[in-house]
């Protein structure tokens, strides 16, 4: 029930209260009253028809880079999959 779906802002209504967002090819009108300064191109987390927060793309990229860095360290010691690749795949569906 706290499902939040990310979507990209395609257009904003003139009143600034509603926006059209696109999620995986589907467009949807959502309320943006809870999020300040929404602009076209922003990514929003949408819950029950309303945006509850912006998604910070820069942060997403930076955190990912940090994980990559942490995981590349000591590759020889622990980098090899501890579970067979076939089983591991189930984790990423």
């Amino acid at each position, binding site marked *: *029930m*706290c*499902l*939040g779906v*990310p979507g*990209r802002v395609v257009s904003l209504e003139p009143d600034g209260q509603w926006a059209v967002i696109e999620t*995986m090819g589907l467009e949807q009108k959502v*309320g943006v*009253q*809870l*999020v*300040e300064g929404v602009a076209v191109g922003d*990514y929003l*987390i949408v*819950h*029950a*028809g*309303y945006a*509850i*927060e*912006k*998604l*910070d*793309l820069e*942060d*997403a*990229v930076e*955190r*990912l880079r940090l*994980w*990559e860095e942490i*995981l590349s360290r000591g590759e020889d010691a*622990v*980098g*090899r*999959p*501890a*579970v067979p*690749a076939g*089983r*591991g*795949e*189930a*984790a*990423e*569906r």
Partner: protein
Amino acid sequence: MNKKLGRWREPDLSRKLLARVILLARTVAERLGRLPVFMEVCGTHTVAISRTGLRGLLAGYLELRSGPGCPVCVTDGGEIERMIMLARLPEVTVATFGDMLRVPGRDTSLEEERARGARVEVVYSPADAVALAEAHPEKQVVFLGVGFETTAPTVALALAAAAEKKLPNFTVYSAHKLVPPVMRALLHDPGPAVDGFILPGHVCAVTGRAPFDFIAEQYGLPAVITGFEPLDILGSVYRLLEMILSGHVRVLNGYTRVVREAGNREARLIMNKYFRPVDAFWRGFGPVPESGLALRERFGGFDAARRFALPEPATAVREGCRCGDLLRGRINPRQCPLFAAACTPARPVGPCMVSSEGACAAYYQYERNR
């Protein structure tokens, strides 16, 4: 999906992280003399952990156990009965999120009542319930407000819209719940031995981190605010294990791309404008102080509990149902004798098998044959 965001789902990183988590979990298990146990306090996490197979991949190294994170599941039997009473009133159309429809009450459910002629409409957003009231001035539309801090602000926005339009036929039955108070109740309980928490990312998007700091400060347990990709969940487990090993226990934000340090002030403002905290009953817990939301006095005109005088309902937990123990983290679904036998999604005995976010439903759909 944006390319940059898509990288969060790359299998390669998750696989590497999984290997690290397993190594770390072994060290922690040695130190504890048993497997570490972490609780996810969000139904969306429960589903993600089951669906991706993470629970199974980590089994034998650490246990991921579900807590009181499914709003439909924690809704108390008395509240379910009142919702059913509302649906039975001839002038009322009930508008609800779909998950509530099949939750079994003592004798019936909203779905059964609908089959008998009651008007029950499934809506995706509380805004749809307001639109329904506008389109049907002859009906009393009652929206069933079920959900945590993530949902309550959206219901408050719907109330604001109804107030602005001066809709005389829209009310909310507020069964909203707050997560930090129930976590206090959970931690106060000597029952489940939990070594750390995977905190609900979208609840924290509203509340911020501070309301959860007590977990580390008062109970000495680590917790991480967590997103919903496999890499997010594995990342949080990794950091929980690290904190246990280092002894430097804190509440961390692992979902910084969405959760701001102070949460969403705007969302809290409108939530607090329309609602006030009240003591509330939780399935499995009983009364928990200041853990629910009721409409404030000056918006009493929109309060379904006030507009419609409902008698005190007779309630009963269906025989053998252990949803309550499950929600307290005392058992996992497989430890309930009814699981996948007398209780299935087609014929659910308790709400944890009904809601798509209920742990029993998630285990049934994704982990039954493991």
